[in-house]
């Protein structure tokens, strides 16, 4: 207890610095992947992506980032055995943050496809096993999280596959695909607004003192979807047939209809990413703040303070502004295989899956889900070639990241413990 009392302020400042550093890293590296399908398809420019990401990453973190933060903060570790030594949990969370941040820096400087989520979860588990004991890990919850890492890309892929099939049926395989695209475009935009807001609203805004019943959530989400569809309808109506481009590729004008639609999915994706990945940075931070402010209460009964969510959002935006531009530019040259219609399917599917995971409090990897969604489009025979070696890389990064994150966290934990006691 004495440690918390005498070093409380220092520990909190350290947590804020590490947390900000972690969210800065997420903004610098991770966001580029989240926006990858939007920028890669050429539907939005790098500049537009930055602006969209800045607004919607923050919104996602602030509005819907609470549940995953709760999981990282107190869902993975059972602290009942260390009620008399709350400093252990504080050191552990600091160690987890620093370990994940260091590992991510090393990995991204080498271009390895490492997930922030896996790093932080691995780090928290690693510290808990070594610092408290194997029984202190909530293995039930952890296996659920691990299962979600397999299920979520599959779900993203399935949704993308179904979306692609529906676009073929309703738009491409018709007498006049351009007219069909204009007719159905607003409906597809409605879908974006409706799905994302329904998942978010449904019992999800308690921390903002907004509580909607199931019916009300439904109505508000539908209204939100209709407003978006109306804006989309206006944008789509500006699109004109381009007979020259159509001669070369008959669906060129149809793809042009999907370009304004991609703006909405890009927003949804940034929102989804913010809502899930902000927790990787601020989850441990929230734990430290809660313990220190309560004077050593490990059960962390206090609600998540809003300023922490805001801080996470700001960290992401700063990362985006300082480094994200450069990282995003690497995909700005365009991925020709990803046309706007394919990008739309993959992005919406990924965004919906991530938001669903955020709502459930499961920390997932946005990048892996987006990769799954792109493969889903490919399984609909919609992409010329997909290099499945990427999946191998992802699996390897999984297997490597968890133990390394854990080991690093354990080392840093003992260092911190030695420094303060």
């Amino acid at each position: 207890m004495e440690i918390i009392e005498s070093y409380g302020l220092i520990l909190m400042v350290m947590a804020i610095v590490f947390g900000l550093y972690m969210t800065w890293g997420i903004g610098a590296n991770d966001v580029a992947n989240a926006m990858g399908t939007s920028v890669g398809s050429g539907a939005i420019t790098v500049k537009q992506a930055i602006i969209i990401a800045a607004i919607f990453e923050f919104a996602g973190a602030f509005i819907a980032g609470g549940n995953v933060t709760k999981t990282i903060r107190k869902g993975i570790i059972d602290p009942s055995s260390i009620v008399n030594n709350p400093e252990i949990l504080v050191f552990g969370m600091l160690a987890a943050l620093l370990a994940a941040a260091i590992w991510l820096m090393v990995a991204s400087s080498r271009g390895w496809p490492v997930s922030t989520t896996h790093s932080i979860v691995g780090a928290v588990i690693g510290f808990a096993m070594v610092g408290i004991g194997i029984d202190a890990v909530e293995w039930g919850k952890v296996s659920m999280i691990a299962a979600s890492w397999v299920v979520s890309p599959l779900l993203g892929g399935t949704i993308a596959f179904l979306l692609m099939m529906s676009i073929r049926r309703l738009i491409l395989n018709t007498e006049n695909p351009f007219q069909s695209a204009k007719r159905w475009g607003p409906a597809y935009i409605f879908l974006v607004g409706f799905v994302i807001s329904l998942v978010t609203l449904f019992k999800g805004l308690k921390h903002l003192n907004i509580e909607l019943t199931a019916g009300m959530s439904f109505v508000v989400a539908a209204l939100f979807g209709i407003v978006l569809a109306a804006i989309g309808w206006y944008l789509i109506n500006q699109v004109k047939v381009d007979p020259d481009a159509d001669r070369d590729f008959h669906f060129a004008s149809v793809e042009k209809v999907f370009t304004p639609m991609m703006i909405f999915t890009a927003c949804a994706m940034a929102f989804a990413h913010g809502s899930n990945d902000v927790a990787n940075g601020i989850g441990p931070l929230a734990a430290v703040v809660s313990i220190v402010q309560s004077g050593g209460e490990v059960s962390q009964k206090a609600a998540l303070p809003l300023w922490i969510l805001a801080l996470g959002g700001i960290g992401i935006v700063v990362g985006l502004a300082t480094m994200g531009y450069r990282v995003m530019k690497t995909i700005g040259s365009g991925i020709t295989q990803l046309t706007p219609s394919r990008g739309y399917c993959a992005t919406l599917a990924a965004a919906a899956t991530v938001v669903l995971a955020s709502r459930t409090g499961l920390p997932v990897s946005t990048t892996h889900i987006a990769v799954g969604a792109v493969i889903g489009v490919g399984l609909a025979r919609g992409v010329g070639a997909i290099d499945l070696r990427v999946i191998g890389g992802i699996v390897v990064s999984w297997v490597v990241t968890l133990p390394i994150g854990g080991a690093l966290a354990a080392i840093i934990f003992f260092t911190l413990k030695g420094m303060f006691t």
Partner: protein
Amino acid sequence: MSSTNPFKSLLGKSPFTALQGHMRVVLECVHEVPPLFDALSRGDNDGVKSAKDRIFEREAEADRIKNELRNHLPKSLFMPVDRRDLLEVLQMQDSIADTAQDIAGLLVERPMDLPEFMQEPMLALTHRCVDVCEMSAKIIEELDELLAMGFRGREATRVEEMVGELNKIEDETDELGLELARRLFQHEDEIKPVSVIMWYQLIQWVGDLADYAEKVGDRLRLLIAR
């Protein structure tokens, strides 16, 4: 910090784009065959030579694209079509350019006069064979649309119809070739026996241009039908 974007590695180059690029070069190569016979009928040796050079140059380019595509088609690629079917289409396209090269090579290595009685039908046959190649190239250009549609639906039907049309004009070239061979045999005593054999061979080869072009369409149909 360097970053390899997972989407960039996931979605490399489309093999269909390369296949179309290859077919465009093959078509450019074939387009030099009529000038070759034009020059020959005028007795313009320099013209023959320069047409041959252009054919050889285009054929080399087609080979380069072919090898590059083959080398960048690892088994780990997931494609909407069978890998073997795709390579078969490529092989057939390449055979068109190879045949054009054979024709040009023979005409330069063994200088021959185009006999008066063969001039008009020979040029007609050549042009018609080029038409078949053009039709086949047009079908290959539909691959983007096929891909957008997942190789089904209206677009698949459309391509089926185009292949039907391809088969029809190829039949015409068979007729023209037979007719020409018949005329050659009627006049076989007027020219040297070896030349008769050589001309018969050339008629076959010109016909092969259309044959391979037809096979491109047929293989593509298999590709769709998977």
